């Protein structure tokens, strides 16, 4: 018996150490190798083949994130309202929505990319553009936002709603004035996570937003985000230094976003960190 105990403990510890050391190795390696390559010329306003500036990619990433969120957030949050506040339990329509959201969250980004290419780029004739990329991404992050909203709304105690109704407020007023404010941190945590998805996305954007290394002039011009920039650099194989530097910036953004999201989530469920 004692023999088993030791072996089990050994394997469990070993696995945990392996998992977390891979994470630390990855982050450490990229930071150590990449930070020395970050220099001011990387942030030059114009991209050319000499400086390979990140600046246009950063601006494009910001624009892409903003656009995708502005499309997806209202739809996702309103879906959450419908599912939690309006739909009756056992409703067939609700089940179909659940099923399709689950399906959406399982579809790999390359399939989104192909769909975006077929639908937004070709069928709607938007060509490679910010719009095509943003619409593709907004479908991709929809399930994340819906789920975050749903969970946040469900966590709001019913007594709040009842009190509001009791004071004579209508349903709409109750949702926007009473329920939404207390659910905001939870919803924000989901939105922040989806920013992470957008910033890191490559496969869904290559054939929808394209990879022109300039700041897009309007919504229907092509532009490359940071992640695509990094893919282009590393697949050409000549600019590994610059790819390292881009990886550092991506990693820092993602770590920041994750920290912010879990801070919001923690504020939302103060009492129980261990849940």
């Amino acid at each position, binding site marked *: 018996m004692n023999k088993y105990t030791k072996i089990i403990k050994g394997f469990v510890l070993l696995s945990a150490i392996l998992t977390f050391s891979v994470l630390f190795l990855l982050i450490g390696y990229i930071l150590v190798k990449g930070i020395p390559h970050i220099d001011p010329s990387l942030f030059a306003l114009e991209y050319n083949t000499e400086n390979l500036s990140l600046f246009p990619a950063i601006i494009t990433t910001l624009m892409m994130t903003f656009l995708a969120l502005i499309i997806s957030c209202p739809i996702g949050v309103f879906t959450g309202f419908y599912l939690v506040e*309006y739909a009756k339990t056992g409703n067939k329509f609700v089940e179909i929505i659940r099923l399709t959201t689950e399906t959406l969250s399982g579809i790999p980004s390359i399939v989104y990319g192909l769909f975006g290419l077929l639908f937004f780029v070709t069928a709607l004739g938007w060509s490679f553009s910010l719009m095509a990329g943003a619409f593709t991404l907004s479908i991709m992050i929809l399930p994340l936002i819906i789920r975050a909203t749903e969970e946040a709304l469900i966590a709001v105690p019913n007594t709040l709603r009842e009190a509001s109704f009791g004071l004579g407020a209508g349903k709409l007023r109750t949702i926007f004035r009473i329920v939404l404010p207390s659910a905001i941190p939870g919803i924000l945590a989901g939105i922040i996570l989806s920013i992470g998805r957008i910033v890191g996305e490559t496969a869904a954007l290559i054939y929808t937003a394209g990879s022109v290394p300039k700041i897009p002039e309007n919504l229907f011009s092509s532009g490359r985000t940071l992640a695509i920039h990094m893919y282009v650099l590393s697949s050409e194989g000549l600019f590994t230094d610059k790819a390292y530097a881009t990886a550092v910036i991506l990693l820092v953004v993602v770590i920041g976003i994750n920290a912010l999201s879990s801070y919001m989530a923690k504020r939302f469920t103060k009492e129980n960190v261990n849940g």
Partner: protein
Amino acid sequence: MKKNFLEKFMEIIFFISASASIISVVLICVFMFAGGIPAIKEIGLFDFLLGKKWSPSNVPPSFGILPMILGSIYVTFGAILIGLPIGVLTAVFLSKFCPRKIYRYLKPAVNLMAGIPSIVYGFFGMVVLVPFISNVFGGNGNSILTASILLGIMILPTIIGLSESAIRSVPKSYYEGAIALGASHETAVMFAVLPAAKSGIFASIVLGIGRAIGETMAVVMVAGNQARMPNGILRGIRTLTANIVMEMGYAADLHREALIATGMILFIFILFINGVFSILKRRMN
């Protein structure tokens, strides 16, 4: 009267928003199938799925995606082989062995692992794993083995997350019963609690398979991408996803349609995996 109108109006807006995800899924299905089926008709289902040769620029061209189907299956299998034991045991650690103080830092670390973009994983694989495999096992390092290891790492957060919540939801009485019968903490966890969590762990495998088979960028950067039948784990391979990303940029006509059909096959795989996953999840509840 006016207020009532607004209430009704917004309810309809919410309803329309809720239909967005249904519309999206329908649109995706329609476009993927409408884009893929013509190519399969032209090439022939049998030649397309079981053809061993992919050479779109030959005259006459051949469009067999069996090498890519096998490639996807091999690296996915490899990823599960590596990621499953490590992931489940890490989940056991997090839920049953880890002191609360450390857990506060490790849980966000797992979430961070899930948040790191696949392009960064791929780059890490390219600059660290590929040379490592090449030095240790020979060859040029771009291989099934490298891709499997990298994917195994990438599916860890999926497996850890689902397994951990499955282990946590096992009733305490299982553990207490085992302890009362004289088992140690370790044996109680491994032989009483873990088997009771098996449906959740199985669901995590299914979701992990879905992640691995759909992963694109990371695989493209370490797998070598040769479109030929796999021969040996130290040789390069091309997956379904890689096939699309590598050639879509310049493909035209039938070649382009064949790539879309490749995407369709991948999509069918994913729909099947999703179906299995949601059945498992319903059974768990």
